[in-house]
């Protein structure tokens, strides 16, 4: 119920559009009722052979309602789609606004398993919240009221009889089918997801299945789930078929009942018999308003589930808060002080989990380079997350240009610290647009200069459309090395004084690794650099190397010192630098 009201609140600014759509929706059905009612009256009247003039109004009425119905239907569809699209736009902006502060700390979890695309489809589901959930009951209520007044005018008994069947068809039937199908529907959801998982296994894991001779077993498993799912779906189909069937039954029985009730009333002279046909046909036509209610109930359930998932994400507290400054507040870009001081930092992603970083301490003076080395999962990337203020740390202190990092707004921090990471996203846009994200003011010459420095310019100009080549999901597929070098070009364009390189050569072959390293060396000139890597490259130029294991620094020093130590660094070095 709470979810429902939150959804209504989200849609509330569109209330006038909805009122209009409801009104037009009612007028559509009203015209259908009007058409049948006036036609019935026209014929009944004509049967009494009055003068033509007496039929004039009815003839005009019949023609009017005949055209009005179509026109109103057209308008209703336009208005309600207009509302739907505006709602979609609002939902997107609302969700984005809610999720923006959470990235990447909380969204990290949603990266995998296509959860993000589920979010997108949840929002697509909710765009129909008005059209399929709110509108049908509203139109049904207004239509019901109108019919109540119309029938009541002839005889209150009609109104009560009508209302009984109307409510039964509108609420009773959906409720009954819901009760009958509840257990099966839940079962079908489970089966569907199991079948999907088995299909994923069967198709994506086919090489393993065939190699290990298990394809028949997996096939049998899939076929069993498939049979079971279809069996449940067929039974659900039989229950859902009740909706149409009972709807038709109640509509006709309502008309029949009113006819039966009308017989004594007409015979007693309480009603002019010329209205008899009108009352019966108007009743038949009015049930059109309750027929879509069954679907509305089903859609409501789907909408609530989708909304719950979205609310759950948006309701999370942002992971980073900026504290009021206690010391100097002058921006580093003004003071030119880009020294970085990390003191005794410990950090755990979730309470109760082991620390991803423990008592990390180092300092980085402008122009210096340091490297963090260690196996994956040693906590190296955590440092990048903390420095860029994607997460807040609880213990220890980080100072940037002498100021407590927590008092500097994240946007300002990210102006000073640039990141080159293997997870850089390429948007569905041209190469030029993807680069311009780093610096919207950069002109073509600046972009090309950056790409030359990143060793990617020749590759780009070799493409058929050059810098206008679309990349991203719907564009050209780029190799890991190409993406990485684009990411470096972005960092050059951004021109931040401190650079964090997070596994810049991971997943690259030797040839690409060398290209990327060359590009990096030119980038590292005149900048402070923190290199995070598990892949040992020549680190001779680095002032200090920190070797991490399970979040702890176990060795530190420069390369020649560490090689003499014969510790972990030396062992890793031996394993990796052996010739190929």
């Amino acid at each position, binding site marked *: 119920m709470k979810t429902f009201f939150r959804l209504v609140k989200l849609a509330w600014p569109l209330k006038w559009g909805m009122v209009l759509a409801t009104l037009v929706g009612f007028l559509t059905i009203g015209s259908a009722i009007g058409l049948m009612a006036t*036609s019935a009256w026209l014929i009944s009247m004509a049967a009494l052979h009055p003068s033509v003039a007496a039929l004039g109004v009815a003839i005009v009425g019949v023609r009017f309602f005949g055209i009005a119905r179509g026109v109103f239907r057209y308008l209703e569809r336009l208005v309600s789609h207009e509302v739907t699209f505006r709602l979609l736009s609002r939902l997107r902006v609302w969700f984005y606004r809610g999720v923006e502060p959470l990235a990447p700390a909380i969204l990290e979890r949603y990266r995998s398993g296509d959860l993000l695309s589920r979010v997108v489809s949840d929002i697509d589901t909710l765009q129909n919240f008005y059209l399929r959930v709110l509108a049908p009951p509203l139109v049904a209520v207004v239509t019901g009221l109108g019919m109540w007044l119309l029938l009541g005018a002839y005889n209150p008994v009609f109104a009560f009889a009508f209302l009984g069947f109307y409510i039964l068809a509108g609420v009773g039937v959906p409720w009954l089918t819901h009760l009958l199908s509840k257990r099966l529907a839940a079962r079908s959801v489970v089966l569907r997801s199991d079948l999907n998982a088995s299909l994923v296994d069967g198709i994506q894991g086919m090489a393993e299945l065939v190699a290990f001779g298990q394809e028949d077993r997996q096939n049998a498993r899939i076929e069993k789930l498939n049979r079971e799912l279809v069996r449940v779906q067929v039974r659900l189909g039989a229950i859902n078929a009740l909706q149409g069937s009972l709807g038709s039954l109640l509509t006709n029985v309502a008309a029949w009942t009113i006819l039966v009730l009308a017989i004594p009333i007409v015979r007693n002279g309480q009603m002019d018999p010329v209205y008899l046909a009108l009352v019966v046909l108007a009743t038949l036509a009015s049930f059109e308003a309750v027929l879509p209610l069954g679907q509305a109930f089903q859609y409501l359930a789907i909408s609530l589930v989708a909304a719950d998932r979205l609310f759950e994400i948006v309701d999370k507290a942002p992971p980073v808060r900026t504290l009021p400054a206690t010391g100097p507040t002058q921006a580093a870009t003004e003071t030119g002080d880009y020294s970085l001081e990390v003191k005794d930092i410990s950090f755990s992603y979730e309470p109760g989990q082991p620390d991803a970083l423990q008592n990390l301490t180092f300092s980085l003076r402008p122009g210096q380079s340091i490297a963090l080395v260690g196996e994956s999962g040693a906590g190296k990337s955590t440092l990048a997350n903390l420095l860029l203020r994607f997460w807040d740390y609880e213990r220890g202190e980080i100072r940037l240009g002498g100021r407590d990092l927590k008092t500097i707004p994240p946007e300002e921090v990210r102006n000073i610290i640039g990141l080159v990471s293997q997870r850089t996203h390429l948007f569905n846009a041209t190469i030029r647009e993807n680069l311009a994200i780093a610096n919207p003011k950069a002109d073509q010459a600046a972009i090309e200069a950056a790409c030359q420095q990143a060793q990617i310019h020749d590759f780009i100009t070799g493409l058929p459309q050059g810098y206008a080549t679309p990349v991203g999901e719907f564009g050209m597929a780029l190799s890991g090395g190409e993406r990485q070098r684009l990411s470096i070009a972005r960092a050059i364009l951004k021109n931040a004084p401190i650079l964090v390189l997070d596994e810049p050569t991971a997943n690259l072959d030797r040839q690409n690794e060398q290209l990327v390293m060359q590009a990096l060396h030119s980038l590292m000139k005149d900048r402070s650099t923190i290199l995070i890597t598990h892949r040992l490259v020549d680190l001779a130029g680095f002032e200090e190397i920190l070797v991490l294991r399970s979040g702890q620094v176990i060795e530190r020093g420069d390369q020649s010192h560490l090689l003499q130590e014969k510790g972990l660094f030396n062992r890793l070095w031996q394993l990796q630098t052996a010739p190929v």
Partner: protein
Amino acid sequence: MKKQKTAARQSKSAVTRRLFMQGGKVRLFLGITVAAGGLLSILIVVQAHYLSLLIDDIFLKNGSGGWGWLLALLAVIVGRAVLNWVGDASASKAAGLVKKTLREALLKHILKLGPAYTRGERSGELTNTAMEGVEALDAYYSQYLPQFFLTMLVPLVVVVAVFSADVLSGVVLLVTMPILPVFMILIGLQAQAKSQKQFNILSQMSAHFLDVLQGLTTLKLFGRSHHQEETIARVSERYRQRTMGVLRIAFLSALVMEVGATISTAIVAVEIGLRLLYGQIEFQSAFFVLLLAPEFYQPLRTVGQRFHASTSGIAAASRIFEILDTPTPDGSETDKPAEPKTVPPTRPAALGLRFEGVSFAYPTADGPRPALENVDFTIERGVKIALAGPSGAGKSTVAQLILRFIRPTAGRIVVETEGGNFPLEEMDAKAWRELVAWVPQNPYLFNDSVLENIRLGKPDATEAEVIAAARQAHAHDFIAGLPQGYATILGERGARLSGGQIQRLSLARAFMRNAPLLVLDEATSNLDLENEALILDALDKLMAGRTVLMIAHRAALLERADRVIRLEAGRVAGDSAVKEQTLA
């Protein structure tokens, strides 16, 4: 690739025909639906008949209707509801049957196409077609088809009934009749264009939003994330305006249809009203006609609303048929009927392999793309061979040939055992694969427990055997540390493992398999060092006493080989002992 796709895609009518021609039982249930629709249309007429009799009696003849007629009317009403249900339920049964058989056929065919076909990005699309694509047929069978039959039957029965009551009204309906198919086609074209266009626009907009969400971290990094809020609103707004432009026109066809139908009803009403006025027609007949006129057009209006189910069903079906029509490549083995094959008489303890002039080409839209050309080499029994060379040189193709995911386009592979030599092609594929343990580059984890995932190597293994294999692969310790140990569920919906952990599970599978031939496909690429040390140790144990083919880049692996074969552009570029190789 693209060219091939459009060529294989069938015309809409061909797809529709195939959808109609689905199996005997499907036709039975569709037949029931048609029969129910036929009876239903007769009952519609009978209901109108009794209703007009009753009203005529009470209104003009001062009668009391009489319970006989009233009960008959009630019976007709109940009959209508029952037929309604029978028609829909049996349509839903037909839909279920179609979904079941098509999904099974699809799966069998994909399996025949083999792992070489389903590799990589295509697998996601195939899974989606087998799941959602098949589901999309439901609405086609359970909603669209029954309505389609009613659209054929009801107007026919109604017009006959009206003729029998009043010829002139019958003529009016008949005159509007030819307009109906025109409307149908009009709606069809419009609905298709509309749903296609609208769907494209909507999916573009969704794709943009998804893109922004996925790139949110990158946007924040460059301080552009706030700016995107406006962009989202702007893009949505632009799409709204464009879509509404499309819809304004698309809805017009429905408007024309709607107005056409209601005006026709209105014409009939006025026509019989005026004739009634001059006593040219009986009230009862007039009322009967009035009741039936809207029924004449009703099915057509409904079918328009359900057209979407039809278009999306046909789109899904054409993709399904396209997959089913993809010829199983010559290189695939799995479609061969189980014919008697030369199986090694006893399970050989050791085996070797000889490639004799082996070539292989991948079929593509632009003709075959050669991957291996006339390759000769021998892997002697008990020898460890490393396969080196740049990516694209054909190394993985060699592994796939050995696993018989594909078959040589020329030349042959000979299996050497102590009991004699056999051409690989003549051996039963399943029996052969039992002799091979494969450690792929990116092992796939199934949505199942750790235990079952390792058991893949030997389905009847006891838990103790699984644990022993895990220990040998250095996987036991981390498995024991998982929340539910060996019962922990893995895969998409389960626990997430690091690259090194996955690789060690894959090694445990190979230990489980305990096969004389071991194929390692870059088993140590992309691993961090600590894992690599563990994996190398496990590999040493695994390789002991077996014939090994390893595809390798790393020195650590190469130095474990007895010989290194270098492939370049699908040809053998060198075959030498490892010592010479490193010296060169």
